[in-house]
């Protein structure tokens, strides 16, 4: 059975529908990019998959015994985090909270996992630095490390490279690919980056106000939407 399955769901807020009759399903290990215009409902879809919002119609099914505590999430940065006093270590270990169960405090295994994920992201040396003093690329790595601490099977990324310079962007894409290919974690990513989408994704969900496309990357490249999409640099 699919890891995530949407069967004719509708999304929106305050009584306004922004996405109608959405269908797609994703198996373990796949890499889905959600692309589309601003306001087409990309972030809303991510929030619905995460259970932060309820769909207006239908429900998102999770299969294969996927539990809420096995999902990692890398949100866009919030304003409140800009001056939040927290060290990199404190931020990353908060991702381990969902494996804590009823225990109040983190144990040796949690701490070891944090160090693993920091090394994976190449930021072990930043462990005691203050989160808001970091550069944009470093912050995104910290949030990715936190998401990795929270997940075993599925990770959702909401515009992970927004505002990064080309080098930092490339490095982050490489890390995400590594997570997907080597660790077998399913990736769902919202993206504005045409080139990267066509390079890394295995599946594509293209949202626009009047039409929704879902399929593998090859199907997309040969579809009308895909051809138009590939000609543009940014969406």
């Amino acid at each position, binding site marked *: 059975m699919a890891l995530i399955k949407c069967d004719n769901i509708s999304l929106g807020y305050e009584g306004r529908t922004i996405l109608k009759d959405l269908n797609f399903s994703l198996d373990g290990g796949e890499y889905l990019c959600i692309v589309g215009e601003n306001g087409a409902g990309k972030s809303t879809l991510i*929030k619905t998959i*995460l*259970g*932060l919002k309820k769909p207006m119609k239908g429900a998102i099914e999770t299969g294969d015994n996927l*539990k*809420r*505590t096995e*999902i*990692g*999430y890398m*949100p866009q940065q*919030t304003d*409140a*985090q800009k001056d*939040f*006093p*927290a*060290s990199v270590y*404190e*931020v990353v*270990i*908060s*991702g381990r*909270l*969902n494996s*804590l169960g009823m225990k*109040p*405090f*983190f144990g040796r295994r949690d701490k070891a996992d944090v160090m693993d994920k920091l090394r994976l992201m190449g930021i072990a040396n930043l462990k*005691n630095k*203050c989160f808001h*003093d970091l550069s944009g690329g470093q912050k995104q790595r910290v949030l990715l490390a*936190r*998401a990795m601490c*929270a*997940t075993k099977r599925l990770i*959702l990324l909401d515009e992970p490279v927004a505002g990064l310079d080309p080098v930092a962007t490339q490095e982050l894409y490489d890390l995400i690919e590594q997570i997907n290919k080597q660790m077998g974690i399913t990736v769902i990513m919202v993206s504005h980056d045409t080139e990267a989408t066509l390079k890394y994704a295995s599946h594509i969900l293209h949202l626009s106000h009047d039409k929704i496309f879902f399929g593998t990357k090859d199907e997309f490249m040969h579809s009308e939407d895909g051809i138009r999409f590939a000609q543009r640099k940014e969406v």
Partner: protein
Amino acid sequence: MEIFADMFNYQFMVRAITVGLLVSLCASLLGVSMVLKRYSMIGDGLSHVGFAALAAAAAAGIAPLKVAIPVCIAAAFLMLRISENSKLKGDATVAIVCSGALAIGVMIISMSSGMNTDVNNYMFGSILSLSAEDALVSRILSIIVVLLFVVFYNRIFAVTFDENFARATGTKAGLYNGILAVLTAVTVVIGMRMMGALLISSLIIFPSLSSMRICKRYRMVIISSVIISVVCFMIGITVSFAKSTPAGASVVCANLIVFAICSLIGALKGRVGKKA
């Protein structure tokens, strides 16, 4: 030194100091989350609701804490709810609650005992207002607040830093927001009779703001906020005893001075940091 010995000679001072220290401890722990979650003014709203509840309890002749604590907990939930969901903005909500509760409290007092020293005591606090039984209840409650804070420390950090992430990855964010609200309500009620309805919220806000000027890690902010709060309380209460000034106002003034010093240190550090 002599003045300390003097202070501890009076039963009511010992009572006031032990309760005050515990309240300062609770307030500084919770304050960090309240400030970072942009809920600073909720403490203020709660203290005004507490004022109305105390007035009502006094008029009805019921033990004040028994009325004020449940009423404030309910108000805390209401304010959290409203500021999250409704079209009313959080600060507007708190402003309505503050002035509404204040007006109700004053009405109750004027219709029952009349405007007298009671009002003054509720507004600005009085260390004489604590009975032995109140003091005992206050101590027990504040110890419970501290213990719960420690037990939920990691969860409180998570919902403070990034509520959406916490919720999305399976932490019951609503529950921990609720716990924060309850703990804050209890702290405000215990503290307001000594500090006064108008001044108790500063006990929540000042120490954490001061420590955020100089510390950059969450745990360090919490620890230094506790130290600042406890030290400021001791300075304030000592000044109050020596110069016969109101306790609440003296503690707030001590906090204000420390905040100014911390801001200065923070600004200097920032400037050095930029040069380096």
